[in-house]
């Protein structure tokens, strides 16, 4: 189970961001992407999950080209972007349910409630997301990580708007995922002390 | 075929239509030619400016 990037080059409009990025990430490994503002971290992560097309190079997940994954390989990958993909009109519980439904994943009501509880949303499962704080919305999104069967997580700035306790919880969750043989690619401007030893990719 | 320049310009009574059509076509093509030539000049001038100051040109795109 590997995620491979080969001589990736990306550009944003007229701007050439980076070129010649390559790595192979194996099961149980964590890749931490570092770089100043505008160095292309988000673009790299979007390229790694197949949303953006690289100007050159290729990304492979489970041996398949990331832009042409079959259904099974696609289900093995979970991306959390800058935006939470949390709908204002729906409650955290409904958001979670809809998100799982869209990916064709199954879970019981108890599992979902449990995930929200763990993510620190106990008591507001039934309140429309528009009344929640920014951090609580972020947690709603992160609750997906608890019940998704995906092996590869691509997390863009997951710590934004999270308080210290939530950060610790997320770090614990990532460590557990890695122990079970999962793969994580992430980026953050905040300190990542507390995470297992990552491989580091510098973009500059 | 035509009895002098006046007859030619009269176009058998259809002067307005015929010359209106040909005139607009001529105007259109002329205008297009001028615009394209101007754009070409502008682009070349910009590039020449850039090559004189290569450092400034970098990362600037257009």
């Amino acid at each position, binding site marked *: 189970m590997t995620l491979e990037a080969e001589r990736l080059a990306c550009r944003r409009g007229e701007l050439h961001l980076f070129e010649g990025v390559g790595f192979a990430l194996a099961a149980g490994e964590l890749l931490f992407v570092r770089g100043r503002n505008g160095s292309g971290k988000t673009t790299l992560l979007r390229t790694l999950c197949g949303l953006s097309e690289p100007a050159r190079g290729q990304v492979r997940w489970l041996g398949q080209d990331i832009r042409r994954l079959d259904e099974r390989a696609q289900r093995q990958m979970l991306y959390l972007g800058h935006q939470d993909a949390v709908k204002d009109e729906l409650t955290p519980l409904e958001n979670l349910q809809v998100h799982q439904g869209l990916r064709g994943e199954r879970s019981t009501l108890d599992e979902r409630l449990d995930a929200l509880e763990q993510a620190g949303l106990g008591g507001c499962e039934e309140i429309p997301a528009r009344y929640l704080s920014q951090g609580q919305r972020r947690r709603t999104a992160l609750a997906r990580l608890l019940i998704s069967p995906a092996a590869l997580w691509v997390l863009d700035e997951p710590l934004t708007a999270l308080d210290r306790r939530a950060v610790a919880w997320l770090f614990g969750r990532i460590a557990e995922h890695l122990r079970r043989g999962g793969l994580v690619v992430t980026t953050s401007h905040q300190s990542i002390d507390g995470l297992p030893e990552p491989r580091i990719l510098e973009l500059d | 075929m035509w009895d002098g320049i006046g007859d030619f310009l009269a176009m058998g009574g259809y002067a307005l239509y015929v010359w209106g059509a040909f005139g607009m*076509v001529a105007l259109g093509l002329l205008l297009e*030619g001028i615009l*394209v030539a101007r754009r070409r000049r502008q682009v070349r001038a910009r*590039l020449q400016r850039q090559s004189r100051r290569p450092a400034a040109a*970098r990362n600037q795109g257009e």
Partner: protein
Amino acid sequence: MTGRSIPWLKFTAPANFYTLAQRLVPWLWPAAALCAVAGLYMGFFVAPPDHQQGDAYRILFIHVPTAWMGMLLYLLLAAYGAIFLVWRIKMADIMARAIAPTGALMTFLSLWTGALWGAPTWGTFWVWDARLTSTLILLFLFLGYMALHAASDDREKGGRAASLLAIIGAVNVPIIYFSVEWWYNLHQGVSVMRSDGPSMADSMLAALLLMIAAFWIYAGAIVLRRAQAEALSREARTEWAQAAAAGRLTREQRERAAVGIEGNRPPLESGGQT
């Protein structure tokens, strides 16, 4: 991106295109002018008045070429759009973008000349028949292509979206034609490309063909010129473009640009490897 290594694809390199156009265009202008002068002479001084329409029919000598050019350029636009969407060849987008304004102008001129021809012959400047309506829609499609291309901040993205629109339009225009044809029909039949040969006096046909040739060559020249400017502006930072702007693009520079070694811009050091 394996296509990059196919030899013929090197002609799609903007640098090679630029040089080719640079050699071609100086011949095209006089050729177009020659055809136009000959065509106008034939059209105004040799071809006799028509038995029905008198001298008004002479508008045909510019109406038919512009109408043809409008449609032809739209097909080309859609074809280049498809090439760009499928193979991502940058030159295809440059060509498509260079074609659009000329196509829009030709379509507009064919509508204008058609209206001025229709007024004395049909008794109206405009009827909502199939050809007129679909030509008008063609004009909107050209304008839509240009607007969509220009509206996007990212030229590549704008080009792809606009190409998609051009292709959908290419499918839709025949449908529009038939739907209107069906609904209302007044326009004359086909008069040149008929199975029983053109139904036209020889001198008229000669004038028309000369004018058609003139418009073809003119369109070719102006599109190449616009594409040159577009190619230069997109590749502004490369060695070949700056040399070309100064008027001294060497063969060596051109070949280097064609195989993708871009001068003047040092590769960004991506720290890259873990």
